């Protein structure tokens, strides 16, 4: 769900969990690497832009 801008600024986002296994193989903070993979595999890139606060 989209949040109001004020709510988003106030909202916490989530830190990476060490214990719960993620099922999607995220590349962390490396746009160039993601683009290289996408070109090789001919796949679109899903991006989540987030902040730790």
């Amino acid at each position, binding site marked *: *769900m*989209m*949040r*109001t*801008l*004020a*709510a*988003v*600024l*106030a*909202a*916490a*986002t*989530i*830190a*990476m*969990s060490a*214990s*719960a*296994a*993620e*099922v*999607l*193989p*995220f*590349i*962390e*903070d*490396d*746009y*160039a690497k*993601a*683009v290289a*993979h*996408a*070109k090789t*595999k*001919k*796949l*679109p*890139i*899903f*991006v*989540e*832009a*987030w*902040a*730790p*606060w």
Partner: protein
Amino acid sequence: MKAYVYTDKSLERFAGRFVWLSVNTENAKNAAFLAKFKIPALPTLLVLDERGESIVLRYVGGATAGQLTKLLDDVRRKSGTTPDAVLAAADKLAGEGKQKEAAAAYLAALSNAPKGWSRFGRTAESYVLALSSSGDNERCATEARRLLPAQRRTVSGATLAAVGLGCAAALDEKSSLRSDLLAALDTATRAAFDDAKLDISADDRSGLYISLIEARDAVKDAAGARKLRQEWARFLEDAAARARTPDQRTVYDSHRLSAYLGLETPEKAIAMLEQSERDFPDDYNPPARLAAAYRAMKKYDDAVAAADRALSRAYGPRKLTIFRTKAEVLAAQGDKPAARAALAEAVAYAHSLPAVQQRQSVITALEKRSRELEE
């Protein structure tokens, strides 16, 4: 989303269909990405083409596993109609930060949408958000209200109500439309919150409380705002108690602190934040939030100690907020030289950030505060 959504096994079928990129907007490593793609609010979800150049889909806000499934399936759905092409163009404009142009394009897509168009809901959300981002609060609120009836009892409807309510609250008090818009959108937001069948996360339900409280504050209904804050605090405590991992529990820390500060009971935040700091010793958020709580309690030595712990771990633009908290605590203690020193450190740090992470308005505010402390 990492704690609640990306662990959902129902999303496994998408793993090989996309390349997955996580962009921490506070991390300077992502400067090139942030210079290319405007991120107006967090989280923002994008799908880029295989060259990583064009925006295929843009969604501002978090999503449950169900909502994410719908978005990802939507990417794969054929985009042949004119509204689809106009929507893609609108998403691209919004991603470039051209909110007025994006709003016009989203409206064009909506106006030409065939009956039952599967993308109508998220287009309506994006339209209203673009109006809000461009500062057109009156149109944002009136359009949210206009589009709501067709989106009632949907996630998009909840978003329209909450965003519209925020816009209505931001209208000038002299606006003849304000009162009516606030009442209508407040009712719609509350209805969305009370709809137990609506597939939105507890975190996003909490966001609805923020919108409702803002509206009470906007009409100077202190008693109503307080009642909502009390309800909000209980809701968050209940959600945190049901969390299955420390990651899930800490999702609610920021909102809980806000609720307790609003209720003038900051001491209620201490135990939960101390636990979070023990669980995540490298995370700057728990000590940064402790600094804010201790400041509100006037326990200034504890606030400075917590701020220093946070500063030793923090990075990115958020570090400036922590410097500012420390400076204000030092000023409250009467130590103006130390407060100015903290602000000077903040300004120097701000200038060291990549250009795309610098905000001149923030630097100006820090410098202005420092001058005030000289007087």
